């Protein structure tokens, strides 16, 4: 398990305090934070989720010498607008490598299919870092909500001052505070999985408050969409034996 983050930002030499990703996402945005995360944990590599997909900053993928346009297993599948929405943010969306067995079929016992591990060195550090990053992105969305709603008016007061809006924001805040508390504790892989769902829930609550603006393809909803995509692609990357040597050791300890 990842050592609980200390009170100081500087962890052991060579390791970045994972809270850095939260700060970066909140202040600089989702994609710069993801660049930071990848460079710190997977320098020069293209970390893939357990299904073999990757969603990474285009520049990171190019630096690793991998074509940023997907030519993998799903490249000839019909696709919707999701990829171009992520692409417009500067993200490369990679399908599993072409030689990899797709796992579409459920297990005979009816449980969800567990993919063979295709992750490259991803592990609990990665998923925990991702959760911090997504939390920072969610907090940035909250900052934006406050600003946006303060500027919109109805019946003589700003939308921010409507009690229902205050209540909804407080609900989201409770979620985010709890998520941060759990992340600070150095959570296990299944706990991080749960946090990812919780972060998505918080984002959805905030997006509702932004009205149709949060549904525009070039607005804040696009970052939230990319954040959901990250959670989806790296779902289970921390606990399916896909971890690199470092994380595997820690996992055993």
């Amino acid at each position, binding site marked *: 398990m990842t050592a609980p983050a200390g009170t100081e930002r500087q962890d052991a030499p060579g390791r970045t305090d994972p809270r850095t990703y939260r700060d970066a996402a909140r202040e600089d945005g989702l994609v710069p934070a993801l660049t930071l995360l990848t460079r710190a944990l997977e320098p020069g590599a293209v970390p893939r989720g357990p*299904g073999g997909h990757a969603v990474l900053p285009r520049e990171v993928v190019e630096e690793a010498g991998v074509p940023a346009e997907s030519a993998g297993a799903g490249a000839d599948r019909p696709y*919707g607008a*999701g990829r171009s929405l992520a692409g417009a943010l500067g993200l490369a969306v990679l399908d599993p490598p072409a030689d990899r067995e797709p796992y579409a079929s459920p297990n005979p016992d009816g449980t969800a299919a567990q993919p063979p591990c295709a992750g490259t060195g991803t592990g609990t550090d990665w998923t925990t870092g991702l959760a911090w990053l997504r939390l920072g992105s969610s907090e940035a969305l909250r900052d934006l909500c406050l600003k946006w709603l303060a500027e919109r008016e*109805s019946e003589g007061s700003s939308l921010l001052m409507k009690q229902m809006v205050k209540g909804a924001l407080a609900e989201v805040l409770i979620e985010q505070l709890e998520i941060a508390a759990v992340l600070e504790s150095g959570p296990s892989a299944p706990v991080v999985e749960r946090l990812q769902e919780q972060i998505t829930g918080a984002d*959805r609550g905030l997006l509702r408050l932004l009205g*149709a603006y949060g549904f525009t*393809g070039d607005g804040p909803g696009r970052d939230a969409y990319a954040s959901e995509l990250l959670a989806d692609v790296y779902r289970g*990357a921390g606990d399916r034996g896909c971890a690199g040597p470092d994380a595997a050791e820690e996992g055993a300890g």
Partner: protein
Amino acid sequence: MIRELPDGMARLRDRTASWAGELRAGALGLDRDPEAIRDRLEEPAVRFLAELGGDGPVTPGRDTLERVVVAEELARGDAGALLASPGPSMSGVLLAVLGSPEQRDWFYGRLGERPTWTCFALTEPERGSAIGEMSSVLTPDGDGGYVLHGTKRYVGNASRAGVAAVFARVAGTERLGVTAVLVDTADPGYRARPLPMLGLRGAQFSSVSLDGVRVPADRVLGTHLSPARRGMWSIVQVFNRLRPSVAAIALGIARAAHEYVGEQRGTLRGAERERYEELGRRIDAARLLTYRAADAVDARPSAGHLGSAAKARAAVLAEDVTRSALGFFGPGARLDHPLLDKLARDARGVEFMEGAGNIQKLTLFHGLQAGKVGRP
């Protein structure tokens, strides 16, 4: 758990349901490119929507329920195509409530010439939920007509519409005095520009600018009605009739995701099966509420509270079901199952159609307090 429907309506449901496969096949293409609808004008579902209203409802007096039944089935195929199709759409309902026979003739005459899109322009950049505070303005031209100025946003199909229903205030009237007019979009001063959206992209939501558009007297809706019935009163009736079908769109989206899981995953067992069945039960429950809401409005057009409940419930349901559906597949489900990814994006949009969730809840509260809802 599907409630019995009158004969003609059950047949209509089966007919519209039979188009789901074709709609689904085109769904991702339309998601990528909203203009792809132009190549699909011969599809039965699109033609049906384009011609709707010409023949009237199959079960007169039950038109809200009928729209609900149709909307659910078509949205189960593809909510994007349902909203992207030419035809009377929401403006048709507006005309049914507020239009004179001559205005309806003009409107349906235009639509009869060729597949024609219509739009319903209400929302403004600064004022979404606060409809009564809109700033688009109709200035009398001295001839019984008006000159229209204003800006609208998030208006479905506005950039390809031939006829636009536009809501505005008449200069010098009180705050809530909202009037609806019909605008020929070829007239000078009407300009619309598509906006990029995250979901329901087929509908090509647009911003509209109205710079001195001339509105002749005979395009002002409701002038043949008593003054009390012209403005907000009628507009509320229109929303009451439309809201159950928005709930039905959410139901259709939820069902599409739920059925996709069933088809792709085959037999489910254990906790997964329980989870799947519970989602199905939630969809059925929301449908029963939506049907009730439609019945209430069909019986009494001012009885809109159940519609608010149904719409608020179904919008959340669509988000929940589409999110859960992704969890039935492995990591990368959004990429491996692009249709589910699209449904999850589409589902989010329903929240804002015909009034955001908070507005529905406020309406419900007022109904509760006034003793108009929640009584046996």
